[in-house]
């Protein structure tokens, strides 16, 4: 299991590639479920140019590890990779990567979904967006569906 905060840009897909290339038993995990969150140019009806993601050093890492351990206790997953950006983020840059490996697809998909939902609602991160007339703190997350826009 690897859980890391990343203050600089990272390529989420390449990170999964490196992680699985370094992994030990390719025949064990039949299912890999991956979620990647990427910086959009649009949020809550306004164009967004950039974003700063503030965190609580120490508590944020602790919370992310606890999310992953909880998921590993609840579903039969073999491994979890969780990377999360911090700091100033440009449009198109990856913000979060969740990847889980399991024998079966249901366990992997459910675990990944659990982690990303918990992370959206409970992990100590605060978003400040740069919009046309300055900056604004994001007060709440969307439901995760397009109807929420």
């Amino acid at each position, binding site marked *: 299991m690897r859980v890391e905060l990343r203050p600089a840009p990272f390529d989420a897909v390449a990170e999964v590639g490196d992680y699985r290339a370094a992994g030990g038993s390719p025949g064990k995990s039949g299912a890999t479920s991956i979620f990647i969150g990427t910086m959009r140019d649009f949020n809550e009806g306004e164009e967004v140019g950039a974003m700063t993601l*503030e965190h*609580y050093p120490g508590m944020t890492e602790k919370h992310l590890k606890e999310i992953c351990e909880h998921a590993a206790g609840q579903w039969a997953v073999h491994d979890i990779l969780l990377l999360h950006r911090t700091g100033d983020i440009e449009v198109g840059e990856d913000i979060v990567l969740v990847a889980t490996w399991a024998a079966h697809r249901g366990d992997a998909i459910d675990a990944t979904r659990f982690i990303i939902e918990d992370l959206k609602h409970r992990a*100590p991160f605060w978003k400040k967006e740069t919009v046309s007339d300055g900056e604004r703190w994001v007060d*709440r*997350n969307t439901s995760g569906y397009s109807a929420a826009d």
Partner: protein
Amino acid sequence: MSIIKVKFFARIREEMGRAEDQVEFKPGLKVSDIWNRASGDDEMPEAMLVAVNMEHVKGDPELKEGDEVAFFPPVTGG
């Protein structure tokens, strides 16, 4: 002198104009005392979250020597 480390994040950090305070510990000191001293406000904002030693807390617990208290708005992570 034993101190309590106080941290502010995001909108609350900006409103306070600083990221950190150091408060002298006294027996019986509560989270609300820390907030009052830092902000001058009698009440804590309803939407504000509080963590003691990086664990979320509810209500107004008493603090121990060496505790770290953090005040921050609802999270908007991921």
